[in-house]
């Protein structure tokens, strides 16, 4: 086994170096290109594909690469955090689980590079003119990309293979430093790739006639670059946590003994906590991204939220509703791990009711697609009573309240194994209840007043104080909670006692996340409509039309099944490798 591991490592290193060389070649090719204006393309500028649907091929390669990339960028972040907590708490459990996380993802690194190479190749083959134009602007960034890739590969192998050797004393800190380097390189890679993608949506440094006359930094730092970086960074963490949670859930269901079950229960809880923790700020990063889209082009913003894609956000609401309900359900099932969990079960129905109402508000469409007869019967495209719920202020209000009540589920879960003993505990709880109530009133007031009684331009702006309210209450309640539970009466969580059905909540989160990422990837790209580079370089290929949501859903579903199948295979490889090492 040791020999095959060594061979595998050699193959990975050779592959990484080949990919690095490939990227360097792209850089040198690109750096030789003169800066040109965006070409006006005709159908003949696209090579014949002989029955291959060029857009579908690029779409699938891009989506696979994004899923793998999100996973392998997120896992090292989780691993580093867990390793650091383990060092601070002097708890070896964190270290073990961190190492297992990394083992799960190690094979996915090679697959990320393979799908990345496939994407690059398919773009060069199917869209040569677009790549030529982008390379003429972004050529030098390919060098950064290649260097980040090389550094990431080197630190990854050092981090993984050095885990055992650098486990004690000052070497442990060196190991943590390597982990930090790995994460910095990974995040840098993502930032570089994001620059290319966001330039295609919101090109900067281009004059009205489409000639690029800006500098490289202008092109990189375009309207969407920063919000996209933040959104993807947070989403990757949530996604990585959810995939590892699904792995733990599967291992929990297949556990051979109590010890194994307890281990995977703890692993599932830890990873899902990270996933849910990252899920909480994600809608806010999404608002920033959307606001920047509107800021760049009202037309693009309206296409996104009010045009043909309006219904896509209803599908998104269904998925996010499912994510929140599954996350809450998992926490409610977790009440059984603590000795005092039973006393909070009565609150579950109320929390579930509020979350369901918020979900329904989010689910309400803005405009309805009606026949003329139906529209006449209804008195317009909007429902007379439910219509206002379709607007963004109502949805912002709903999502903030949903987040607050998910946080409440978490708070109750944490209390299921401890009882405060400080004299002021009753006042502390009253203060928390007061904060919650005031927050719900404030969020609702802001949503109703700014959303329905002011100019349209201020409607979405009301989301900022709403978000601030939510974040303030979460932080304030956590601070009160921490002080209130100093010296509290505690019992240990009984790991491994979760019902089997709770693990399906973790699986639901992972599958929903994967599907949701595919769907949102589609809409992000589709709002460019018939443009390669929005407003600058028009797509003249036969596939320039915007696909329908139904078509996109089928593509995303097929992609999800392929991706999940590969992930299951990776999990199998990981566990097979571990069993062989144990032997």
């Amino acid at each position, binding site marked *: 086994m040791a020999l095959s591991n060594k061979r595998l490592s050699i193959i990975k290193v050779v592959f990484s170096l080949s990919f690095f060389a490939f990227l360097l070649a792209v850089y040198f090719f690109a750096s030789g290109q003169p800066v040109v204006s965006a070409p006006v393309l005709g159908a003949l500028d696209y090579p014949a594909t002989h029955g291959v649907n060029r857009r579908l091929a690029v779409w699938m390669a891009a989506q696979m690469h994004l899923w793998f990339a999100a996973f392998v960028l997120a896992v090292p972040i989780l691993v580093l955090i867990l390793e650091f907590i383990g060092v601070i708490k002097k708890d070896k459990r964190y270290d073990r689980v961190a190492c297992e996380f990394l083992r799960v993802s190690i094979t996915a690194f090679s697959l990320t590079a393979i799908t990345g190479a496939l994407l690059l190749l398919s773009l060069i083959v199917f869209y040569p003119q677009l790549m030529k134009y982008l390379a003429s602007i972004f050529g030098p960034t390919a060098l950064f990309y290649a260097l980040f890739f090389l550094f990431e590969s080197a630190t990854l192998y050092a981090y993984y293979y050095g885990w055992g050797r650098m486990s004690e004393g000052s070497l442990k800190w060196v190991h943590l430093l390597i982990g930090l380097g790995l994460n910095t390189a990974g995040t840098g890679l993502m930032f570089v790739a994001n620059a290319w993608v966001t330039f295609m949506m919101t090109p900067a440094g281009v004059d009205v006639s489409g000639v690029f006359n800006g500098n490289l930094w202008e092109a990189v730092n375009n309207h969407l670059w920063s919000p996209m970086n933040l959104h993807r960074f947070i989403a990757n963490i949530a996604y990585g946590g959810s995939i590892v949670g699904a792995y733990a859930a599967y291992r929990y269901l297949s556990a051979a003994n109590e010890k194994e079950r307890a281990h995977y229960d703890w692993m599932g809880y830890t990873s899902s906590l990270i996933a849910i923790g990252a899920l909480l700020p994600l809608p806010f990063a999404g608002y920033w991204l959307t606001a920047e889209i509107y800021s760049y082009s009202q037309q693009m913003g309206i296409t996104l939220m009010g045009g043909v894609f309006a219904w896509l956000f209803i599908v998104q609401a269904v998925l996010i509703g499912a994510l929140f309900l599954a996350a809450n359900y998992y926490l409610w099932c977790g009440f059984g791990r603590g000795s005092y969990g039973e006393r909070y079960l009565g609150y579950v129905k109320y929390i579930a009711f509020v979350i369901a109402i918020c979900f329904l508000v989010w689910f309400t469409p803005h405009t309805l697609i009606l026949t003329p007869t139906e529209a006449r019967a209804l008195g317009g495209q909007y429902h007379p009573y439910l219509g206002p719920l379709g607007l963004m202020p109502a949805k912002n209000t709903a999502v903030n309240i949903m987040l607050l009540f998910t946080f409440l589920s978490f708070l109750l879960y944490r209390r299921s194994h401890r009882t405060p003993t400080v004299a002021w505990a009753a006042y502390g709880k009253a203060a928390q209840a007061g904060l919650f109530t005031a927050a719900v009133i404030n969020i609702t007031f802001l949503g109703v007043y700014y959303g329905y009684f002011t100019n349209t331009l201020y409607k979405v702006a009301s989301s900022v104080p709403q978000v601030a309210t939510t974040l303030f209450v979460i932080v304030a309640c956590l601070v009160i909670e921490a002080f209130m539970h100093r010296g509290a009466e505690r019992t240990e969580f009984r790991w491994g006692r979760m019902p089997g059905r709770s693990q399906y909540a973790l*699986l639901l989160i992972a599958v929903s996340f994967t599907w949701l990422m595919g769907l949102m990837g589609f809409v992000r790209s589709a709002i460019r409509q018939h443009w390669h580079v929005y407003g600058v370089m028009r797509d003249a290929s036969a596939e320039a039309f915007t696909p329908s949501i139904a078509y996109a859903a*089928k593509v995303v579903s097929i992609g999800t099944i392929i991706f999940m199948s590969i992930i299951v295979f990776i999990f199998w490889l990981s566990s097979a490798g571990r069993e062989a090492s144990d032997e």
Partner: protein
Amino acid sequence: MNNFLKVAAFSLAVIGLYTFYSVWVIPPINPEAPPKEAVVEEPATVDELVELGESVYNGKGACSLCHTAAAGRAPLLERAAVIAGQRIKEPGYKGNATHAEGYLYESLVNPSAYVVPGFGASGSADKVSPMPDVRGSSIGLNETEIRAIIAYLQSISGVEVTIAPAPTEETKAKE
């Protein structure tokens, strides 16, 4: 193996449900085909110019996306040509136009020259317009189309259409 099959079946069922909902439950909407890059012929009469303006206003120009009561994102333009004449005389007007027609042209190609209070880009204190220069970006109108829009706005405002079908030396000098 039993657990593996259960987990696989569950995952497939979840994916199937999302697909079913997206394909069969929500209304089927097929986005419009990309607009064709047609060569705009110079209108021969004022009526043709106004007709072209209306078609650009509601189509390629994408004006009606924002300039509607429902969207509420930009000023309504039903009386734009009348208001334009009054606006250039207001003390708050800081643009360069000296007549109503020039104001409309300026609003199309340099929208930030003057921003109607309450309609500036977020955080700009009404100094920057969220509207793009209609000659660039995804809109890309040519001079004939811009003049056609001005003619259309004059027409719906109920004032005399002062734009000639083809640019004369006089209008060129005004612009």
